[in-house]
C-alpha cells in the first residue's frame, strides 16, 4: 500500500443492498493514515479512482460503490432502484464502510441521480459531514416549472404573445398547471414546509435552499459542481441562485461551474480533470466536523 492510497483486496466485494434481489459492488481504497472521515463514491469509473486517490492524499479513505452489473446496465430498473432505495443504499454503504474501517463520518459523492439521492441521504442521516454533488438530477417537473415560470415572469414573453409570435395552445396547458401549482403552494405553504419530503430519493427537495442551509448549519461541507451545459446548472442558478450565493459567501458551500459539456464526468477525461481539481481544492479548504 502506498502513502497516497491504492485499491486494496477489498475490490469487487459484494454487499447486500437495502432490498432483496440485487447487491452492491464496492472497492475500498485504503489510506495508511486514515482519519475518522471516509468517502462513499457512487461510481466505479476511472474518474472515481482518480477522485479516491485525491481524497487518499488528504488522508480520506474511500469506498467506490455501484449496484450490480445486470441492474446497472438496465436504465429503467436502475433508476427505479435509485428512486426507492437510493438513501437506504447510502446507509448500507456507510454501515459497511464503518464496519470495515471504523469510519464514523462520511462524505457522499455522486453524479446525476446518485448526487440527488446522496443529498437526500445527507438530509436524513447525521453521519454525513460532506457532500460532493455533480450535475444533480433535476426532474422534468422541476425543470418545466422553472422554465415556464421564467417565461411567464418575462415581459418579453407577453409582448411576443400579444404580437402573435407564440402559440397559445402550446403554452396554455403548462402555464395553467404551473399557475395552479404556485397558487396551491402559496395557499398551503407546501413549497416551504420543512415537513415536506421529496416523494422519491431521485427528486431534489422543493425547499432545497432551506435544506442546504440546514445542512450547512449542521456543519456539513458541500461542494456542488455543474457542467456549463447541464440542466442542473440552469435549475440551481434560477431557483436557488441567491441562497447558493449567500451560503458560498459565508464559506459554507462551494458552487462551481465547470466548463464542460459532459453530463457524466467519468466518461470525459477533461471534465474529470476539472472536477478533480475542484475536489482537491475543496478538500484542502474544508473542515469536517465528525460526530
Amino acid at each position, binding site marked *: 500500500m502506498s502513502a497516497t492510497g*491504492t*485499491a486494496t483486496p477489498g*475490490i*469487487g466485494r459484494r454487499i447486500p443492498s437495502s432490498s432483496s434481489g440485487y447487491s452492491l459492488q464496492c*472497492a475500498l481504497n485504503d489510506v495508511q493514515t486514515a482519519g475518522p472521515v471516509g468517502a462513499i463514491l457512487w*461510481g466505479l*469509473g476511472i474518474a472515481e479512482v482518480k477522485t479516491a*486517490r485525491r481524497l487518499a492524499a488528504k488522508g480520506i479513505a474511500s469506498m467506490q460503490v455501484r449496484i450490480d*452489473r445486470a441492474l446497472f446496465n438496465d436504465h429503467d430498473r436502475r433508476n427505479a432502484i435509485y428512486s426507492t432505495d437510493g438513501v437506504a443504499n447510502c446507509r448500507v454503504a456507510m454501515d459497511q464502510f464503518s464496519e470495515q474501517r471504523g469510519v464514523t463520518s462520511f462524505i457522499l459523492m455522486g453524479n446525476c441521480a446518485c448526487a440527488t439521492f446522496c443529498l437526500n441521504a445527507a438530509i436524513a442521516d447525521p453521519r454525513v459531514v460532506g457532500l460532493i454533488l455533480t450535475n444533480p438530477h433535476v426532474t422534468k417537473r422541476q425543470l418545466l416549472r422553472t422554465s415556464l415560470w421564467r417565461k411567464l415572469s418575462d415581459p418579453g414573453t407577453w409582448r411576443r404573445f400579444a404580437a402573435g409570435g407564440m402559440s397559445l395552445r402550446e403554452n396554455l396547458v403548462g402555464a395553467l398547471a404551473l399557475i395552479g401549482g404556485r397558487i396551491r403552494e402559496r395557499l398551503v405553504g407546501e413549497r416551504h414546509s420543512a415537513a415536506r419530503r421529496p416523494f422519491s430519493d431521485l427528486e431534489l427537495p422543493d425547499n432545497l435552499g432551506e435544506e442546504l442551509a440546514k445542512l450547512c448549519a449542521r456543519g456539513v461541507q458541500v461542494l456542488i459542481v455543474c457542467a456549463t451545459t447541464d440542466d442542473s446548472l440552469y435549475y440551481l442558478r434560477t431557483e436557488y441562485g441567491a441562497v447558493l450565493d449567500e451560503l458560498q459567501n459565508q464559506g459554507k458551500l462551494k458552487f462551481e461551474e465547470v466548463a464542460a459539456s459532459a453530463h457524466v464526468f467519468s466518461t470525459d477525461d477533461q471534465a474529470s*480533470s476539472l472536477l478533480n481539481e475542484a475536489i482537491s481544492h475543496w478538500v484542502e479548504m474544508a473542515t469536517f466536523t465528525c460526530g
Partner: protein
Amino acid sequence: MSFDVEQAEIVSTLKSMLADEMDLGLVAHEIDENVPLLEDGLGLDSIVIVELIASVERRFDFEFQDADLRTSSFESLTALAGVIRRRREQ
C-alpha cells in the same frame, strides 16, 4: 531490451493477468490486445478496470499518475502496455 520485445512482454503479462486473476472466463492466447477493453471489445466491467489498475500497480511496481487515469489509457491492452512501459522507464 528492444521496444517491441518489452511491449510484447507487457501485453503477454496483461493477458495472463486478465485470464488467470480476474475470473472473467477469458483464455490468455485468445485475447486480442488491440480490441477495446470495455463494452464493445473484451467487455470488461468498470469494477474489473478498478481491479486491473490495482493489479497492474502491484505486478509492475509503480503507481499510475493522474495523467494516466484516462479512458485512452484503457482503450486496449496495447494502449495500457504503452502507459506501463513509459512509467517503468521513468
